[in-house]
């Protein structure tokens, strides 16, 4: 099914337009989209970094984890929306390079897990601002989640960069 969708997309007019290297605009649209994508990654990474390090007990001492979560998650969601838009644009330009690439597929899988953890931060602290501080067990779980989240986002970033080098679909 993924193969069929990729084939269909590859033959769409949008792909034809975005991958037409004889047109000047495609030489501008794609790198510009990639630049915005990187800036979006910057917003997500610093927000995720601050948030998870706070849960690990490192830095931002003056702000509670709940307050940081309330402040930073809107930034994370907005940046992710920008990342989705620019990412979709880049995928349309080169469907099989992305969709059929195993590094890309891994990236999407890691992204799902990372987003789930971020949602869990928001839901739990909205219910109880001290949620991750109420018992030793919770504190341990929080730290484990934070470490996992950091690793996942680093994995997502790395996979994103490495799509260009590894995992290409060969037919």
């Amino acid at each position, binding site marked *: 099914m993924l193969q069929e969708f990729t084939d269909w997309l590859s033959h769409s007019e949008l792909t034809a337009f975005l991958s037409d290297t004889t047109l000047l605009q495609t030489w501008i649209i794609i790198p510009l989209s*990639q*630049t915005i994508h990187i*800036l979006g990654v*910057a917003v997500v*990474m610093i927000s995720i970094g601050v948030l998870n390090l706070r849960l690990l007990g490192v830095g931002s001492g003056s702000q509670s984890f709940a307050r940081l979560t309330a402040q930073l998650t809107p930034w994370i969601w907005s940046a992710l929306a920008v990342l989705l838009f620019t990412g979709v644009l880049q995928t349309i330009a080169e469907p099989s390079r992305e969709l059929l690439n195993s590094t890309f597929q891994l990236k999407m899988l890691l992204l799902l897990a990372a987003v789930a953890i971020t949602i869990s931060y928001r839901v739990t602290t909205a219910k109880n601002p001290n949620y991750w501080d109420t018992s030793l067990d919770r504190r341990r779980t929080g730290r484990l989640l934070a470490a996992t989240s950091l690793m996942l986002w680093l994995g997502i*970033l790395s996979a994103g960069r490495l799509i260009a080098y590894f995992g290409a679909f060969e037919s």
Partner: protein
Amino acid sequence: MSMIDFLTWLDATSLAESIRDSVWLFPVFETIHVAAIVLVIGSIARLDLRLAGLIGRDRPVTEISTEMLPWTWASFAIATVFGLLLFVSKPMVYLEMAFFDVKMILILLAGLNMFAFQHMTFKSVGRWDSSPLPPVAVRLAGGLSLAFWISVVICGRFIGFV
């Protein structure tokens, strides 16, 4: 020894050769370079936007700068080291890229802006540390910094694209 001589020598070193010959080294170095740059931009943008009075207006500037600048410096050091390794692998290629020159100049400008801010504007921080909207000179420094760094990313991306 001219610049070209030096780069020709660099190009022939065993370090350059091993990076070129390896399937993994260049992509891995590039990934670390990008991860570090992303953190430079993210951390400096958080401070710049506070200087511009656009975010975190209820928190003192110095609190955000103490929190963010260690990230900025550490990441910048990592980005530089791995950027140099990328450069070493094909110095002649980068030498011919206008985007590479522009990127280096922009980093220099960002540094000068930061230096001027630190040694002039920042001296009066006591007066505007907690003000939601800092004075024009401060906001300008924040805006310039943001503009320079975003332009650095644009050039960096185009270097990879050409």
